[in-house]
């Protein structure tokens, strides 16, 4: 298919494509700089999203960001930015400072949650979010909200019982929810071949009575198209969809992990060919949506925004130690 018509077919215009690219660059910049901050000891923990920016950003871009809900997982940085979390808020989260809107420094970095933005809080116990998303969607149905809920998780979480229970419930009640699985092939060190004899997660949707689709997670246009259709289906009352994006994991599981214990340098180099950022940059330049100069300007601008957010977050106050006793119970 000619490249221009690919953009048209996706339902996105040039401004959308530029916006998605900018969010992808921003997510990459934050992820890379956060990793460096952990190496410098200024930040204590990070979960890089390098390699799945197209999937995170383009999927969230298909939502009505003002009224829809996201139930995130730790690599949902790109989706958080699209949903309205600012670079400054992300950096306050990385540094665990009092003004972090996600948890005020109570949770580890990248454990997202922001009520005002419709981001439903996540903990570290993966998969628990999946029935929770069905519940958020059930409440939308009961309350007559015209909202769609999208929940993000990895293919490792799809092995949890809560995956099965959450999708089962959503299927029965035809809930307005999109299950978005980032299948990057690795759950920390365990390859997908040891998660399930059937590596394609989307196939399981059939067992719950709704469609499952697999898309190239390095192609934001393909991701957007698939999720847009799933969101439309959900909002129309036709029920859930399981969208699986095949993505790559360019970095270790977390700043506490060393992926060379279980992956080869060659494997990592090969996978780099699927890095969505240069791929999308090439597309945008070939189609004339972006030129080399404006790309560099955009990159510089994004880096500056992140650098400024880092300095401000580093200087921001932590919550007073004695507040650790507070807020066990709601009044």
């Amino acid at each position, binding site marked *: 298919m000619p490249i221009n018509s690919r953009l048209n077919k996706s339902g996105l215009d040039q401004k959308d494509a530029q916006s998605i690219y900018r969010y992808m660059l921003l997510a990459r910049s934050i992820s890379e700089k956060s990793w460096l901050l952990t190496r410098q000891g200024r930040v204590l923990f990070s979960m890089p999203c390098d390699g799945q920016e197209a999937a995170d950003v383009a999927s969230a871009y298909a939502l009505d960001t003002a009224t829809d809900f996201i139930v995130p997982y730790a690599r949902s940085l790109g989706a958080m930015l699209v949903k309205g979390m600012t670079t400054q808020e992300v950096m306050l989260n990385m540094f665990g400072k009092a003004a972090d809107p996600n948890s005020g420094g109570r949770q580890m970095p990248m*454990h997202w949650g922001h*009520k005002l933005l419709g981001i*439903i809080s996540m903990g570290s116990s993966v998969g628990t979010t999946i*029935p*929770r998303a069905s519940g958020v969607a*059930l409440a939308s149905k009961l309350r007559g909200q015209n909202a769609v809920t999208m929940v993000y998780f990895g293919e490792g979480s799809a092995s949890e019982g809560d995956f*099965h229970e959450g999708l089962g419930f959503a299927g029965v009640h035809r809930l307005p929810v999109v299950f978005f699985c980032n299948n990057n092939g690795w759950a920390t060190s365990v390859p997908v071949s040891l998660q399930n004899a059937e590596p394609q997660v989307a196939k399981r949707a059939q067992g719950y009575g709704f469609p499952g689709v697999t898309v190239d997670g390095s192609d934001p246009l393909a991701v957007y198209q698939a999720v847009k259709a799933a969101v439309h289906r959900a909002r129309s009352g036709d029920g859930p969809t399981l969208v699986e994006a095949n993505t790559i994991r360019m970095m270790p599981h977390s700043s506490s992990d060393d992926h060379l214990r279980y992956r080869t340098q060659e494997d990592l180099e090969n996978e780099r060919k699927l890095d969505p950022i240069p791929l999308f940059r090439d597309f945008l330049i070939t189609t004339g949506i972006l030129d080399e100069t404006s790309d560099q300007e955009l990159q510089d601008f994004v880096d500056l925004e992140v650098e400024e957010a880092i300095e401000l977050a580093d200087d921001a106050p932590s919550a007073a130690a004695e507040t650790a006793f507070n807020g066990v119970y709601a009044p």
Partner: protein
Amino acid sequence: MSEKRFIDAIRDGLREEIAADAAVFLIGQDIGVNGGVFRVTDGLLEEFGSGRIIDSPLAESGMVGVAIGTAMNGMRPVVEIQFADFIFPAFNQVVSEAARMYYRTNGDFTVPMVIRAPYGGGARGGLYHSQSVEAYFAHVPGLKVVVPSNPHDAKGLLKSAIRDDNPVLFFEHKLAYNTVRGEISDGDYTVPIGEAVVSREGQHISLISYGLSVHHCLEAAETLSAEGISCEVVDLRTVRPLDTVTILESVKKTGRVCIVHEDNLTGGVGAEVAAIIAKDGFEFLDAPVQRVAAPDVPSFPYNPGLEDVLLPGPTDIVRAAKELAAY
């Protein structure tokens, strides 16, 4: 005032809260057309429809996970776990998610959810329809755990639980449903969570208990009174948070304490009550603190003879109280 059975008081509480607040709905297994296996929700589907009374798949973790999601989007779910014994698949959702949502979001999100479950032995339910599970949850910051003993408290506490912005575990002894009756106030009223009550005044010994065991304590107190031993019965009603003031006031008055529960002994609620008394009521004590509880056996066996030998009852309480009185 009117006399009600325990089960009717709970159903009335549910009905009134569903009618009063559009955010309240029920979810559980067999609670719809079947009215629940104990019939607690009998008639509610007809009255309120399938949007308010939802029959869940056979999946406790998913059910509680779904309920948490609804609670984070404006609803007030009341979950029924068919038997307390089956709550464990949902333990992670309750403890890792619901209990700490408010804390971990620095006050951004609340989880106003009630989980009701029938507990307790004596119904010949064997190892998996007889357990007391309150101690597992009473350990968890962020949860409230309520175990009412009579119809009046059950209805009033259930209403408080549904209106509470925190997750509340609400345990109902299955033998109480049809056997415990009592006077109940007319109209809308609540009983506050976290307040114990003195069910019977006494001078010599404090019997501290909750749930169905309170009735065993009252029966024992009657027996002992004929022998000149005056027992005070404290009904905790809530096991988290504990009403330390009422506990200590009673200990101060009597100086002798026996804590009674059907849950097994080690690590039970009685251990926590004993620790509170040991620290803040030490100077009031005239005898070591006694506990009457099920022995540390996995749960009650099916055969009546095997079950009855393990179930703590009035005879055990009388024996312990006499030891205390003689000390």
